[in-house]
Protein backbone atom coordinates (compact mmCIF):
# COMPACT_ATOMS: atom_id res chain seq x y z
CA UNK A 1 0.00 0.00 0.00
CA UNK A 2 1.29 3.48 -0.80
CA UNK A 3 2.07 5.77 2.08
CA UNK A 4 -0.76 8.22 1.40
CA UNK A 5 -3.24 5.37 1.31
CA UNK A 6 -1.92 3.95 4.56
CA UNK A 7 -2.13 7.36 6.21
CA UNK A 8 -5.66 7.87 4.88
CA UNK A 9 -6.71 4.50 6.23
CA UNK A 10 -5.28 5.26 9.67
CA UNK A 11 -6.94 8.70 9.64
CA UNK A 12 -10.32 7.21 8.75
CA UNK A 13 -10.10 4.54 11.44
CA UNK A 14 -9.01 7.10 14.07
CA UNK A 15 -11.77 9.49 13.01
CA UNK A 16 -14.55 6.89 13.24
CA UNK A 17 -13.22 5.43 16.51
CA UNK A 18 -13.28 8.92 18.06
CA UNK A 19 -16.59 9.99 16.52
CA UNK A 20 -18.64 7.04 17.83
CA UNK A 21 -18.35 7.80 21.55
CA UNK A 22 -18.56 11.47 20.51
CA UNK A 23 -22.22 10.96 19.59
CA UNK A 24 -23.10 10.29 23.21
CA UNK A 25 -20.76 12.96 24.56
CA UNK A 26 -22.59 15.54 22.47
CA UNK A 27 -26.02 14.26 23.53
CA UNK A 28 -24.99 14.25 27.20
CA UNK A 29 -23.47 17.72 27.04
CA UNK A 30 -20.18 16.18 28.17
CA UNK A 31 -17.89 17.41 25.40
CA UNK A 32 -15.79 19.50 27.74
CA UNK A 33 -15.35 16.59 30.14
CA UNK A 34 -14.04 14.62 27.18
CA UNK A 35 -11.69 17.49 26.38
CA UNK A 36 -10.31 17.15 29.90
CA UNK A 37 -9.99 13.37 29.62
CA UNK A 38 -8.19 13.47 26.29
CA UNK A 39 -5.52 15.60 27.96
CA UNK A 40 -5.29 14.08 31.42
CA UNK A 41 -4.81 10.52 30.11
CA UNK A 42 -1.29 11.74 29.38
CA UNK A 43 -0.60 11.62 33.12
CA UNK A 44 -1.58 7.96 33.09
CA UNK A 45 0.70 7.26 30.14
CA UNK A 46 3.63 8.97 31.87
CA UNK A 47 3.08 7.27 35.22
CA UNK A 48 2.70 3.86 33.60
CA UNK A 49 5.83 4.54 31.54
CA UNK A 50 7.83 5.20 34.70
CA UNK A 51 6.75 1.83 36.04
CA UNK A 52 7.31 -0.20 32.87
CA UNK A 53 10.04 1.83 31.11
CA UNK A 54 8.48 0.57 27.89
CA UNK A 55 6.51 2.78 25.49
CA UNK A 56 4.84 -0.22 23.88
CA UNK A 57 3.59 -1.77 27.10
CA UNK A 58 -0.17 -2.32 27.29
CA UNK A 59 0.08 -1.03 30.85
CA UNK A 60 0.26 2.46 29.34
CA UNK A 61 -3.27 2.03 28.02
CA UNK A 62 -4.52 0.76 31.36
CA UNK A 63 -2.80 3.52 33.31
CA UNK A 64 -4.16 6.17 30.98
CA UNK A 65 -7.70 4.80 31.15
CA UNK A 66 -7.57 4.76 34.96
CA UNK A 67 -6.41 8.39 35.06
CA UNK A 68 -9.18 9.26 32.58
CA UNK A 69 -11.74 7.78 34.96
CA UNK A 70 -10.10 9.50 37.92
CA UNK A 71 -10.51 12.77 36.03
CA UNK A 72 -14.25 12.20 35.54
CA UNK A 73 -14.67 11.17 39.16
CA UNK A 74 -12.77 14.17 40.52
CA UNK A 75 -14.62 16.64 38.26
CA UNK A 76 -17.95 15.22 39.33
CA UNK A 77 -17.02 15.18 43.01
CA UNK A 78 -16.07 18.86 42.83
CA UNK A 79 -19.29 19.62 40.92
CA UNK A 80 -21.39 17.83 43.55
CA UNK A 81 -19.89 19.97 46.30
CA UNK A 82 -21.73 22.95 44.73
CA UNK A 83 -18.81 25.17 45.70
CA UNK A 84 -17.90 26.02 42.11
CA UNK A 85 -19.77 25.99 38.80
CA UNK A 86 -19.64 22.87 36.63
CA UNK A 87 -17.23 24.21 34.03
CA UNK A 88 -14.95 25.60 36.74
CA UNK A 89 -14.60 22.06 38.12
CA UNK A 90 -13.30 20.99 34.71
CA UNK A 91 -11.06 24.04 34.66
CA UNK A 92 -9.43 22.99 37.93
CA UNK A 93 -8.86 19.29 37.28
CA UNK A 94 -7.85 19.31 33.62
CA UNK A 95 -4.88 21.76 33.78
CA UNK A 96 -3.71 20.27 37.08
CA UNK A 97 -3.38 16.70 35.80
CA UNK A 98 -2.14 17.75 32.39
CA UNK A 99 0.55 20.08 33.69
CA UNK A 100 1.83 17.48 36.16
CA UNK A 101 2.20 15.13 33.20
CA UNK A 102 4.07 17.73 31.14
CA UNK A 103 6.42 18.53 34.03
CA UNK A 104 7.14 14.84 34.58
CA UNK A 105 7.96 14.44 30.90
CA UNK A 106 10.36 17.39 30.82
CA UNK A 107 12.07 16.25 34.04
CA UNK A 108 12.52 12.58 33.53
CA UNK A 109 11.76 11.45 30.06
CA UNK A 110 13.92 13.80 28.07
CA UNK A 111 15.67 11.13 26.06
CA UNK A 112 12.71 9.06 24.97
CA UNK A 113 10.15 9.47 22.25
CA UNK A 114 7.64 10.77 24.80
CA UNK A 115 8.10 14.47 24.04
CA UNK A 116 5.61 17.29 24.48
CA UNK A 117 5.29 18.18 20.81
CA UNK A 118 4.30 14.68 19.83
CA UNK A 119 1.87 14.55 22.71
CA UNK A 120 0.17 17.82 21.90
CA UNK A 121 -0.07 17.50 18.15
CA UNK A 122 0.71 13.87 17.29
CA UNK A 123 1.91 13.14 13.81
CA UNK A 124 0.01 11.00 11.39
CA UNK A 125 2.79 11.31 8.84
CA UNK A 126 5.08 9.16 11.00
CA UNK A 127 2.46 6.53 11.78
CA UNK A 128 3.29 4.29 8.77
CA UNK A 129 6.92 4.01 9.92
CA UNK A 130 6.07 2.10 13.07
CA UNK A 131 5.17 -1.31 11.69
CA UNK A 132 3.67 -4.31 13.35
CA UNK A 133 5.80 -7.37 12.59
CA UNK A 134 4.70 -10.85 13.46
CA UNK A 135 6.94 -13.85 12.71
CA UNK A 136 8.75 -11.81 10.12
CA UNK A 137 5.60 -10.66 8.30
CA UNK A 138 4.83 -6.98 7.94
CA UNK A 139 1.23 -6.54 9.10
CA UNK A 140 1.03 -2.82 8.46
CA UNK A 141 1.30 0.23 10.70
CA UNK A 142 0.99 -0.47 14.41
CA UNK A 143 -1.32 2.48 15.09
CA UNK A 144 -3.71 1.19 12.43
CA UNK A 145 -4.09 -2.05 14.39
CA UNK A 146 -4.42 -0.32 17.75
CA UNK A 147 -7.09 2.07 16.50
CA UNK A 148 -8.86 -0.66 14.58
CA UNK A 149 -9.22 -2.72 17.76
CA UNK A 150 -10.45 0.35 19.65
CA UNK A 151 -12.92 1.05 16.84
CA UNK A 152 -14.24 -2.50 17.16
CA UNK A 153 -14.55 -2.16 20.95
CA UNK A 154 -16.46 1.14 20.60
CA UNK A 155 -18.78 -0.27 17.92
CA UNK A 156 -19.51 -3.43 19.89
CA UNK A 157 -20.24 -1.42 23.02
CA UNK A 158 -22.66 0.90 21.22
CA UNK A 159 -24.29 -2.04 19.44
CA UNK A 160 -24.92 -4.05 22.60
CA UNK A 161 -25.74 -1.16 24.91
CA UNK A 162 -27.66 0.94 22.39
CA UNK A 163 -30.91 0.89 24.32
CA UNK A 164 -29.14 1.46 27.65
CA UNK A 165 -27.13 4.39 26.25
CA UNK A 166 -30.29 5.85 24.78
CA UNK A 167 -32.46 5.68 27.88
CA UNK A 168 -29.75 6.81 30.34
CA UNK A 169 -28.90 9.76 28.10
CA UNK A 170 -32.48 10.84 27.43
CA UNK A 171 -34.02 10.31 30.88
CA UNK A 172 -31.52 9.29 33.60
CA UNK A 173 -34.07 9.30 36.44
CA UNK A 174 -36.45 7.01 34.55
CA UNK A 175 -33.55 4.80 33.48
CA UNK A 176 -32.42 4.40 37.08
CA UNK A 177 -35.98 3.62 38.20
CA UNK A 178 -36.31 0.78 35.66
CA UNK A 179 -32.95 -0.67 36.63
CA UNK A 180 -30.41 0.74 34.17
CA UNK A 181 -27.86 2.57 36.27
CA UNK A 182 -26.90 5.84 34.54
CA UNK A 183 -23.69 5.88 36.60
CA UNK A 184 -22.56 2.50 35.27
CA UNK A 185 -23.24 3.50 31.66
CA UNK A 186 -21.64 6.90 32.18
CA UNK A 187 -18.40 5.43 33.50
CA UNK A 188 -18.38 2.74 30.81
CA UNK A 189 -18.66 5.48 28.18
CA UNK A 190 -15.92 7.51 29.86
CA UNK A 191 -13.70 4.40 29.95
CA UNK A 192 -14.08 4.14 26.19
CA UNK A 193 -13.38 7.85 25.74
CA UNK A 194 -10.18 7.46 27.77
CA UNK A 195 -9.12 4.34 25.90
CA UNK A 196 -9.83 5.97 22.54
CA UNK A 197 -7.90 9.08 23.57
CA UNK A 198 -4.81 7.04 24.49
CA UNK A 199 -4.97 5.08 21.27
CA UNK A 200 -5.30 8.22 19.20
CA UNK A 201 -2.48 10.04 20.97
CA UNK A 202 0.25 8.81 18.69
CA UNK A 203 -1.41 9.81 15.50
CA UNK A 204 -3.54 12.79 16.42
CA UNK A 205 -2.27 14.28 19.66
CA UNK A 206 -4.26 15.49 22.63
CA UNK A 207 -5.31 18.91 21.33
CA UNK A 208 -7.10 17.55 18.32
CA UNK A 209 -8.76 14.39 19.64
CA UNK A 210 -11.65 16.37 21.04
CA UNK A 211 -12.25 17.86 17.57
CA UNK A 212 -12.39 14.34 16.16
CA UNK A 213 -14.86 13.35 18.88
CA UNK A 214 -17.17 16.33 18.84
CA UNK A 215 -17.22 17.73 15.27
CA UNK A 216 -18.76 14.86 13.32
CA UNK A 217 -21.23 14.08 16.12
CA UNK A 218 -22.39 17.71 16.17
CA UNK A 219 -22.92 17.58 12.41
CA UNK A 220 -25.03 14.47 12.89
CA UNK A 221 -26.98 16.09 15.72
CA UNK A 222 -27.81 19.13 13.63
CA UNK A 223 -28.71 17.26 10.46
CA UNK A 224 -31.17 14.74 11.84
CA UNK A 225 -33.76 13.99 14.51
CA UNK A 226 -33.09 10.28 14.84
CA UNK A 227 -30.35 8.64 16.89
CA UNK A 228 -29.67 5.91 14.29
CA UNK A 229 -29.31 8.46 11.53
CA UNK A 230 -27.23 10.67 13.78
CA UNK A 231 -24.74 7.84 14.27
CA UNK A 232 -24.74 7.15 10.50
CA UNK A 233 -24.15 10.79 9.56
CA UNK A 234 -21.47 11.08 12.24
CA UNK A 235 -19.54 8.17 10.71
CA UNK A 236 -19.94 9.53 7.18
CA UNK A 237 -18.76 12.99 8.26
CA UNK A 238 -15.77 11.43 10.06
CA UNK A 239 -14.81 9.68 6.82
CA UNK A 240 -15.32 12.75 4.61
CA UNK A 241 -13.37 15.00 7.00
CA UNK A 242 -10.42 12.64 7.39
CA UNK A 243 -10.09 11.69 3.71
CA UNK A 244 -10.24 15.29 2.52
CA UNK A 245 -8.05 16.41 5.42
CA UNK A 246 -5.29 13.99 4.44
CA UNK A 247 -5.46 15.06 0.76
CA UNK A 248 -5.34 18.75 1.65
CA UNK A 249 -2.46 18.20 4.07
CA UNK A 250 -0.44 16.49 1.35
CA UNK A 251 -1.33 19.24 -1.11
CA UNK A 252 -0.24 22.02 1.27
CA UNK A 253 2.52 19.90 2.79
CA UNK A 254 1.42 20.54 6.37
CA UNK A 255 0.31 18.70 9.54
CA UNK A 256 -2.19 15.99 8.71
CA UNK A 257 -4.04 15.82 12.03
CA UNK A 258 -4.19 19.61 12.10
CA UNK A 259 -5.65 19.74 8.60
CA UNK A 260 -8.28 17.11 9.42
CA UNK A 261 -9.25 19.15 12.48
CA UNK A 262 -9.54 22.30 10.34
CA UNK A 263 -11.72 20.48 7.80
CA UNK A 264 -13.81 19.03 10.64
CA UNK A 265 -14.31 22.43 12.22
CA UNK A 266 -15.22 23.99 8.85
CA UNK A 267 -17.73 21.32 7.79
CA UNK A 268 -19.34 21.42 11.24
CA UNK A 269 -19.69 25.20 11.12
CA UNK A 270 -21.11 25.10 7.59
CA UNK A 271 -23.66 22.50 8.64
CA UNK A 272 -24.49 24.50 11.75
CA UNK A 273 -25.27 27.51 9.56
CA UNK A 274 -26.94 25.88 6.57
CA UNK A 275 -28.66 22.76 7.93
CA UNK A 276 -32.14 22.63 6.39
CA UNK A 277 -33.75 21.51 9.66
CA UNK A 278 -32.05 23.21 12.58
CA UNK A 279 -29.49 25.51 10.91
CA UNK A 280 -28.96 29.14 11.94
CA UNK A 281 -29.83 30.33 8.43
CA UNK A 282 -33.13 28.48 8.38
CA UNK A 283 -33.83 29.65 11.92
CA UNK A 284 -33.33 33.28 10.88
CA UNK A 285 -35.59 32.88 7.84
CA UNK A 286 -38.43 31.42 9.86
CA UNK A 287 -38.02 34.08 12.53
CA UNK A 288 -38.21 36.86 9.94
CA UNK A 289 -41.28 35.23 8.43
CA UNK A 290 -42.94 35.00 11.84
CA UNK A 291 -42.12 38.64 12.55
CA UNK A 292 -43.58 39.78 9.18
CA UNK A 293 -46.76 37.82 9.83
CA UNK A 294 -47.04 39.31 13.28
CA UNK A 295 -46.60 42.82 11.85
CA UNK A 296 -49.35 42.15 9.31
CA UNK A 297 -51.66 40.99 12.08
CA UNK A 298 -50.93 44.12 14.09
CA UNK A 299 -51.56 46.33 11.03
CA UNK A 300 -54.86 44.59 10.41
CA UNK A 301 -55.94 45.20 13.99
CA UNK A 302 -54.98 48.87 13.86
Amino acid at each position, binding site marked *: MSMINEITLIAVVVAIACALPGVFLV*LRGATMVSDAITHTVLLGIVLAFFITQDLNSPLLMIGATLVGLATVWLIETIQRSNLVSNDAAIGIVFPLFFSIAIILITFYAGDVHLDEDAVLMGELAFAPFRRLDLWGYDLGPQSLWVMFIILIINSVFIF*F*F*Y*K*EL*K*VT*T*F*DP*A*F*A*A*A*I*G*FSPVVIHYALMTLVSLTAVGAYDSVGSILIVGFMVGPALSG*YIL*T*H*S*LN*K*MIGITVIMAIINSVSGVRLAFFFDTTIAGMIAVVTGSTTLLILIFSPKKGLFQHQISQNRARRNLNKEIEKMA
Partner: protein
Amino acid sequence: MNDIAINIDKLTVAYDAQPVLWNISLKFQKGKMIAIVGPNGAGKSTMIKSMLGLVSPVMGSVTHQDENQKAVPYSELKNRIAYVPQNTSVDWNFPTTVRDVVLMGRYGHLGWFKRPRKKDKDIAKQMLLKVGLPTFAKRQISQLSGGQRQRVFLARALAQEAEVYIMDEPLAGVDMKTEHIIMKLLKKLVSEGKTVLVVHHDLQTVETYFDEIVFINQEVIAAGPVDQTFNKQNIDLTYHRDRNVGEGG
Protein backbone atom coordinates in the same frame (compact mmCIF):
# COMPACT_ATOMS: atom_id res chain seq x y z
CA MET B 1 -53.80 -5.69 56.40
CA ASN B 2 -53.01 -6.78 52.90
CA ASP B 3 -54.20 -3.83 50.88
CA ILE B 4 -51.20 -1.59 51.43
CA ALA B 5 -49.39 -0.93 48.15
CA ILE B 6 -46.60 1.22 49.58
CA ASN B 7 -45.48 1.62 53.16
CA ILE B 8 -43.25 4.54 54.09
CA ASP B 9 -41.79 4.18 57.56
CA LYS B 10 -40.09 7.07 59.41
CA LEU B 11 -38.44 8.26 56.20
CA THR B 12 -35.91 11.04 56.60
CA VAL B 13 -33.98 12.36 53.60
CA ALA B 14 -31.33 15.06 53.63
CA TYR B 15 -29.26 16.81 50.98
CA ASP B 16 -26.01 17.67 52.73
CA ALA B 17 -26.96 18.71 56.25
CA GLN B 18 -30.34 20.11 55.22
CA PRO B 19 -33.26 17.75 55.88
CA VAL B 20 -35.69 17.67 52.97
CA LEU B 21 -38.07 15.12 54.41
CA TRP B 22 -38.48 14.58 58.10
CA ASN B 23 -39.85 11.44 59.71
CA ILE B 24 -42.44 10.64 57.04
CA SER B 25 -44.69 7.67 57.80
CA LEU B 26 -47.44 6.89 55.32
CA LYS B 27 -49.37 3.88 54.05
CA PHE B 28 -50.78 4.07 50.54
CA GLN B 29 -53.80 1.87 49.94
CA LYS B 30 -54.05 -0.27 46.87
CA GLY B 31 -56.57 0.72 44.22
CA LYS B 32 -56.72 4.39 45.14
CA MET B 33 -56.08 7.64 43.32
CA ILE B 34 -53.83 9.57 45.65
CA ALA B 35 -52.75 13.22 45.43
CA ILE B 36 -49.55 14.49 47.01
CA VAL B 37 -49.70 18.24 47.52
CA GLY B 38 -47.47 20.83 49.12
CA PRO B 39 -45.67 24.08 48.28
CA ASN B 40 -42.49 24.31 46.20
CA GLY B 41 -39.55 22.81 48.01
CA ALA B 42 -41.80 20.73 50.26
CA GLY B 43 -40.01 17.55 49.23
CA LYS B 44 -42.76 16.04 47.03
CA SER B 45 -40.39 14.99 44.25
CA THR B 46 -37.86 13.76 46.80
CA MET B 47 -40.52 11.64 48.44
CA ILE B 48 -41.48 9.88 45.22
CA LYS B 49 -37.84 9.50 44.28
CA SER B 50 -37.18 7.72 47.54
CA MET B 51 -40.12 5.41 46.80
CA LEU B 52 -38.33 4.53 43.55
CA GLY B 53 -34.95 3.96 45.16
CA LEU B 54 -33.50 7.01 43.39
CA VAL B 55 -32.68 8.78 46.65
CA SER B 56 -31.28 6.96 49.63
CA PRO B 57 -32.73 7.94 52.99
CA VAL B 58 -30.75 8.99 56.04
CA MET B 59 -33.23 7.02 58.10
CA GLY B 60 -36.37 4.99 57.65
CA SER B 61 -37.49 2.80 54.76
CA VAL B 62 -39.95 2.38 51.92
CA THR B 63 -41.44 -1.01 51.08
CA HIS B 64 -43.76 -2.08 48.30
CA GLN B 65 -46.14 -5.01 48.27
CA ASP B 66 -45.27 -7.82 45.86
CA GLU B 67 -47.67 -10.27 44.21
CA ASN B 68 -47.49 -12.57 47.24
CA GLN B 69 -48.50 -9.64 49.43
CA LYS B 70 -45.10 -9.47 51.05
CA ALA B 71 -43.47 -6.13 51.79
CA VAL B 72 -40.23 -5.86 49.76
CA PRO B 73 -37.87 -3.02 48.78
CA TYR B 74 -38.31 -1.32 45.41
CA SER B 75 -35.35 -3.05 43.81
CA GLU B 76 -37.17 -6.40 43.96
CA LEU B 77 -40.22 -5.36 42.00
CA LYS B 78 -39.20 -2.57 39.66
CA ASN B 79 -41.38 -3.91 36.89
CA ARG B 80 -44.55 -3.58 38.94
CA ILE B 81 -44.07 0.15 39.37
CA ALA B 82 -44.24 2.77 36.62
CA TYR B 83 -42.67 6.19 36.95
CA VAL B 84 -43.43 9.44 35.17
CA PRO B 85 -40.81 12.11 35.93
CA GLN B 86 -41.55 15.80 35.46
CA ASN B 87 -41.57 16.34 31.74
CA THR B 88 -39.27 19.34 32.12
CA SER B 89 -36.55 17.02 33.46
CA VAL B 90 -35.53 15.72 30.02
CA ASP B 91 -34.11 17.24 26.85
CA TRP B 92 -36.91 17.20 24.27
CA ASN B 93 -34.42 17.98 21.52
CA PHE B 94 -32.99 14.49 21.98
CA PRO B 95 -32.97 12.85 18.54
CA THR B 96 -35.68 10.24 18.86
CA THR B 97 -39.26 9.49 17.91
CA VAL B 98 -42.44 9.31 19.94
CA ARG B 99 -42.61 5.56 19.41
CA ASP B 100 -39.09 5.04 20.72
CA VAL B 101 -39.82 6.98 23.89
CA VAL B 102 -42.93 4.89 24.52
CA LEU B 103 -40.90 1.74 23.83
CA MET B 104 -38.60 2.74 26.71
CA GLY B 105 -41.49 1.68 28.95
CA ARG B 106 -40.70 -1.89 27.86
CA TYR B 107 -36.96 -1.70 28.61
CA GLY B 108 -37.40 -2.71 32.25
CA HIS B 109 -39.16 -5.92 31.20
CA LEU B 110 -36.49 -6.63 28.59
CA GLY B 111 -33.48 -6.23 30.87
CA TRP B 112 -29.90 -5.59 29.71
CA PHE B 113 -28.84 -6.20 26.07
CA LYS B 114 -32.19 -7.40 24.75
CA ARG B 115 -33.84 -5.40 22.00
CA PRO B 116 -37.58 -4.64 21.90
CA ARG B 117 -39.52 -7.33 20.02
CA LYS B 118 -42.72 -7.24 18.06
CA LYS B 119 -44.79 -7.76 21.19
CA ASP B 120 -43.19 -4.68 22.78
CA LYS B 121 -43.76 -2.62 19.66
CA ASP B 122 -47.42 -3.69 19.62
CA ILE B 123 -47.82 -2.64 23.25
CA ALA B 124 -46.23 0.75 22.50
CA LYS B 125 -48.63 1.21 19.60
CA GLN B 126 -51.66 0.37 21.75
CA MET B 127 -50.59 2.84 24.44
CA LEU B 128 -50.15 5.64 21.91
CA LEU B 129 -53.67 4.94 20.76
CA LYS B 130 -54.90 5.14 24.36
CA VAL B 131 -53.39 8.59 24.92
CA GLY B 132 -54.87 9.84 21.67
CA LEU B 133 -51.67 10.08 19.64
CA PRO B 134 -51.96 7.11 17.24
CA THR B 135 -50.62 9.04 14.27
CA PHE B 136 -47.63 10.43 16.18
CA ALA B 137 -45.51 7.25 16.32
CA LYS B 138 -42.88 8.45 13.86
CA ARG B 139 -43.01 12.10 14.91
CA GLN B 140 -39.85 13.64 16.36
CA ILE B 141 -40.28 14.43 20.04
CA SER B 142 -38.96 17.97 19.52
CA GLN B 143 -42.14 18.76 17.59
CA LEU B 144 -44.55 17.98 20.43
CA SER B 145 -46.55 20.50 22.44
CA GLY B 146 -46.39 20.45 26.25
CA GLY B 147 -49.60 18.45 26.51
CA GLN B 148 -48.47 15.96 23.88
CA ARG B 149 -45.16 15.46 25.71
CA GLN B 150 -47.02 14.62 28.87
CA ARG B 151 -49.23 12.15 27.02
CA VAL B 152 -46.16 10.48 25.52
CA PHE B 153 -44.75 10.12 29.04
CA LEU B 154 -48.03 8.61 30.21
CA ALA B 155 -48.00 6.20 27.25
CA ARG B 156 -44.50 5.15 28.27
CA ALA B 157 -45.70 4.51 31.84
CA LEU B 158 -48.70 2.54 30.55
CA ALA B 159 -46.33 0.43 28.45
CA GLN B 160 -44.64 -0.61 31.70
CA GLU B 161 -47.87 -2.52 32.48
CA ALA B 162 -47.37 -1.90 36.17
CA GLU B 163 -49.49 -2.22 39.31
CA VAL B 164 -48.49 1.13 40.77
CA TYR B 165 -48.11 4.41 38.84
CA ILE B 166 -46.04 7.17 40.43
CA MET B 167 -46.27 10.48 38.60
CA ASP B 168 -44.54 13.81 39.16
CA GLU B 169 -46.79 16.72 38.12
CA PRO B 170 -48.40 15.04 35.11
CA LEU B 171 -50.90 17.88 34.79
CA ALA B 172 -48.45 20.78 35.02
CA GLY B 173 -48.77 23.10 32.04
CA VAL B 174 -50.98 20.83 29.95
CA ASP B 175 -54.02 21.79 27.87
CA MET B 176 -57.59 20.89 28.87
CA LYS B 177 -57.82 18.09 26.34
CA THR B 178 -54.66 16.44 27.67
CA GLU B 179 -55.81 16.83 31.29
CA HIS B 180 -59.09 15.15 30.37
CA ILE B 181 -57.37 12.26 28.57
CA ILE B 182 -54.83 11.70 31.35
CA MET B 183 -57.42 11.72 34.13
CA LYS B 184 -59.71 9.38 32.22
CA LEU B 185 -56.87 6.88 31.78
CA LEU B 186 -55.78 7.16 35.41
CA LYS B 187 -59.38 6.58 36.60
CA LYS B 188 -59.50 3.49 34.44
CA LEU B 189 -56.28 2.17 35.99
CA VAL B 190 -57.71 2.69 39.48
CA SER B 191 -60.93 0.91 38.49
CA GLU B 192 -58.77 -2.06 37.48
CA GLY B 193 -57.30 -2.14 40.99
CA LYS B 194 -54.06 -0.30 40.21
CA THR B 195 -52.69 2.34 42.54
CA VAL B 196 -51.99 5.83 41.21
CA LEU B 197 -49.91 8.41 43.07
CA VAL B 198 -49.80 11.89 41.63
CA VAL B 199 -47.82 14.94 42.72
CA HIS B 200 -50.45 17.58 42.11
CA HIS B 201 -50.36 21.36 42.15
CA ASP B 202 -53.91 22.46 41.41
CA LEU B 203 -55.90 22.49 44.65
CA GLN B 204 -59.11 23.32 42.79
CA THR B 205 -59.29 19.93 41.11
CA VAL B 206 -58.29 17.77 44.09
CA GLU B 207 -61.89 16.97 45.03
CA THR B 208 -62.91 16.04 41.50
CA TYR B 209 -59.97 13.81 40.73
CA PHE B 210 -58.68 12.09 43.87
CA ASP B 211 -59.74 9.59 46.55
CA GLU B 212 -56.96 10.26 49.02
CA ILE B 213 -54.69 13.20 49.73
CA VAL B 214 -51.36 13.69 51.45
CA PHE B 215 -50.34 17.18 52.51
CA ILE B 216 -46.62 17.45 52.92
CA ASN B 217 -44.25 20.23 53.74
CA GLN B 218 -41.08 18.42 54.74
CA GLU B 219 -43.23 16.56 57.25
CA VAL B 220 -46.62 14.96 56.76
CA ILE B 221 -49.15 17.66 57.65
CA ALA B 222 -52.22 15.50 57.05
CA ALA B 223 -53.19 12.40 55.12
CA GLY B 224 -56.46 10.61 54.49
CA PRO B 225 -59.58 10.44 52.31
CA VAL B 226 -60.18 13.65 50.38
CA ASP B 227 -63.68 14.18 51.80
CA GLN B 228 -62.33 14.22 55.36
CA THR B 229 -58.85 15.62 54.96
CA PHE B 230 -59.10 18.23 52.21
CA ASN B 231 -60.07 21.31 54.17
CA LYS B 232 -59.00 24.88 54.71
CA GLN B 233 -57.22 24.17 57.95
CA ASN B 234 -54.88 21.60 56.39
CA ILE B 235 -54.28 23.77 53.33
CA ASP B 236 -53.31 26.68 55.56
CA LEU B 237 -51.07 24.50 57.69
CA THR B 238 -49.31 23.22 54.58
CA TYR B 239 -48.95 26.40 52.55
CA HIS B 240 -49.08 29.43 54.81
CA ARG B 241 -46.67 28.80 57.56
CA ASP B 242 -42.95 29.10 57.93
CA ARG B 243 -42.24 25.69 59.19
CA ASN B 244 -39.24 24.57 61.12
CA VAL B 245 -38.47 20.97 60.51
CA GLY B 246 -38.22 18.74 63.54
CA GLU B 247 -40.22 20.94 65.87
CA GLY B 248 -43.31 18.81 65.41
CA GLY B 249 -46.92 19.76 64.57
